[in-house]
């Protein structure tokens, strides 16, 4: 159990910067997920935490003690590797006992502790097996047991689930979370899988191009992404290019390729001027899709509506281009004046639509996120 401080952590390889100015505090017993696409520097950050890489700049503190230059073998962190890196020349039990052997734990005691740890991960009967004969899921469990057997201050997980198939991965996520809650140890988990991060994490740190862009609770980063990259990375959304037509104290009015002028309700904190280029994010879950033309009230210009009834609803007419069944939901791709937007709903919610149907898409302008051309989020409301 330990808290961790990363301060201005940086890693350069010659000209390339793998990790740039990463600072974060990880609480004792917390499960932090570093989430990002491949090459975002999340694994390098984890390796620096493990002591397998030396930072070019910055500092790492474990429980307040500076461990920046401490090699991996002097640091009480433990890593579960992506390919598990089990020792092929040792039995499963010897693998799990290896860390204890290096800590000069007597033979009998380390066999006992390794066996107990194997049972902890439901691999008790496999002690004498050759690890190369195990399945991916079993190897993953053995690697986890091997790392936990040394009682690490911090457990580091470097995409250990990414080589498992979907079903097994989801089971293991829940199991990992249970093990974490049971041990109350600090875990840092690296993944490129959003679902995994949301399932596991107390907090999520999102990395891109070597930088840690945002750290926060799962719902916080999802509801309140700091920039366009995060919004695109965390889930499927419709990005729509927009140009600010004009602004007033109640709203920003934008012109888009969807044809109609759209309302973004705002208290004026945005600092936008007419002519500014924006990208709007219309998530499929905020769009309601219904058969038929928009009614008269909705087809009135945005300006009229806002003035008349203070409505922040936007509505556009389109045609269903194609329908994709995705198990519990159906995804409709709707073409609107040549632009394409997708919406989702559960199939049972109303009569199914098919390609060629005229539909209306409606959404509340309050639910739309807007980003500037440089990717930064526009704050439409005073925080």
């Amino acid at each position, binding site marked *: 159990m330990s808290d961790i401080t990363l301060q201005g952590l940086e890693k350069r390889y010659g000209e390339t910067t793998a990790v740039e100015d990463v600072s974060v505090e990880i609480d004792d017993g917390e499960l932090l997920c570093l989430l990002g696409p491949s090459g975002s520097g999340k694994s390098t950050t984890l390796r620096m935490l*493990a*002591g*397998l890489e030396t930072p070019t700049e910055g500092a790492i503190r474990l429980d307040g003690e500076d461990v920046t230059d401490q*090699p*991996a*073998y002097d640091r009480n*962190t*433990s*890593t579960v*590797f992506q*390919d598990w*890196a*089990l*020792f*092929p*020349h040792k039995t499963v039990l010897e693998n799990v006992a*290896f*860390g204890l*052997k*290096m*800590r000069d734990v007597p033979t009998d005691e380390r066999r006992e502790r390794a066996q107990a740890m194997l049972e902890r991960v439901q691999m008790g009967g496999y002690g004498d097996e050759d690890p*190369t004969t195990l399945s991916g899921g079993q190897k993953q469990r053995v690697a986890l047991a*091997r*790392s936990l057997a*040394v009682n690490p201050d911090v457990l580091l997980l470097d995409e250990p689930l990414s080589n498992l198939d979907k079903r097994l991965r989801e089971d293991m996520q829940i199991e990992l979370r249970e093990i974490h809650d049971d041990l109350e140890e600090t875990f840092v988990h690296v993944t490129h899988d959003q679902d995994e991060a949301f399932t596991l994490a107390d907090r999520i740190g999102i990395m891109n191009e070597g930088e840690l862009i945002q750290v926060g609770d799962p719902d916080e980063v999802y509801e309140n992404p700091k920039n366009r990259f995060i919004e695109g990375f965390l889930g499927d959304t419709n990005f729509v290019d927009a140009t600010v037509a004009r602004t007033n104290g109640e709203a920003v009015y934008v012109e888009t390729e969807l044809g109609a002028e759209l309302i973004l309700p705002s208290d004026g904190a945005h600092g936008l001027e007419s002519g500014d280029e924006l990208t709007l994010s219309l998530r499929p879950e905020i769009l309601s899709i219904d058969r038929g033309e928009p009614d008269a009230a909705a087809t009135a210009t945005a300006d009229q509506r806002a003035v008349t009834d203070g409505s922040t609803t936007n509505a556009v007419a389109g045609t269903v281009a194609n329908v994709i069944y995705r198990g519990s939901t159906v995804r409709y791709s709707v073409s609107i004046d040549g632009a394409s937007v997708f919406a989702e709903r559960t199939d049972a919610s109303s009569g199914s639509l098919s390609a060629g149907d005229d539909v209306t898409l409606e959404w509340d302008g309050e639910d739309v996120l807007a980003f500037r051309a440089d990717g930064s989020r526009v704050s439409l409301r005073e925080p």
Partner: protein
Amino acid sequence: MTSNLHRETVETVAFRAGYLALFALMVVPLLVVIATSFSDGARIAFPPENLSLTWYVEFFDSIRWLEAFTSSIIVGVGTAALATLLGVLGAFGQEFDDSSLGSVVAPLVLIPLLIPPVILGITLLMYFNEGGLRGSYVSIILAHTLWATPLVYFVMRSVFSRFDWQQLDAAHDLGAGPVQSFVHVVLPNVKHGVFVGALLAFIISLQEFVMALFLSTSTTQTIPVLAWTELRQAMDPMVSVVSTFLILISLGALALAVIATNLEWVSKQLS
């Protein structure tokens, strides 16, 4: 179709015949040498007139031959140990060096193999004279190591290229220091390669003649050196007996190496 098949058969037969001829060309002289060692005459003759073990008895009675045999073993084992140590560590270190210096080192290691052994022999003789090592086992071992190290190095480079280096990370991560992780994790994974490298070094040393001729004295001369001196005096079948031993030792070492690499291959297939 049939004529085609016919042509292929002819080609295959021709290829095999050529291959066999080449093989015979290389092996028959060895068989001749072995056969002449069982002669009882005073001169080397093929085919031997009478089969006997006379010269084998002679060999085991001859102190000079037994001493040369001992010298060869001492030098061979010494070379194998030193060249393996240097070659394995060199190849291991190279894995962690991605600087431009590293790409220069690999070709440099080859240089001793490219210099004619006569020149190496003379140069080393002068060099060891200065250092007072002339005629010692150490001087011959060092000379042979110059030749054997590059071979061990290249064998180990290829072995290390197949090693899963994440295992080394895992070992460090679990608290194994540099020496512990090398002994407990790296070495067990490459031991067959190390074994093959050491055998190669041993065989190189066993058959090396030119440098040994320059560097040895009558007390440290190796088998090839003594064989050469003896040949100049008399062409008796003792030389054949010694050659037979050398051939058998080399074949034995080769067989061990094949078994070791095959074991490695088998274990690779199973994993």
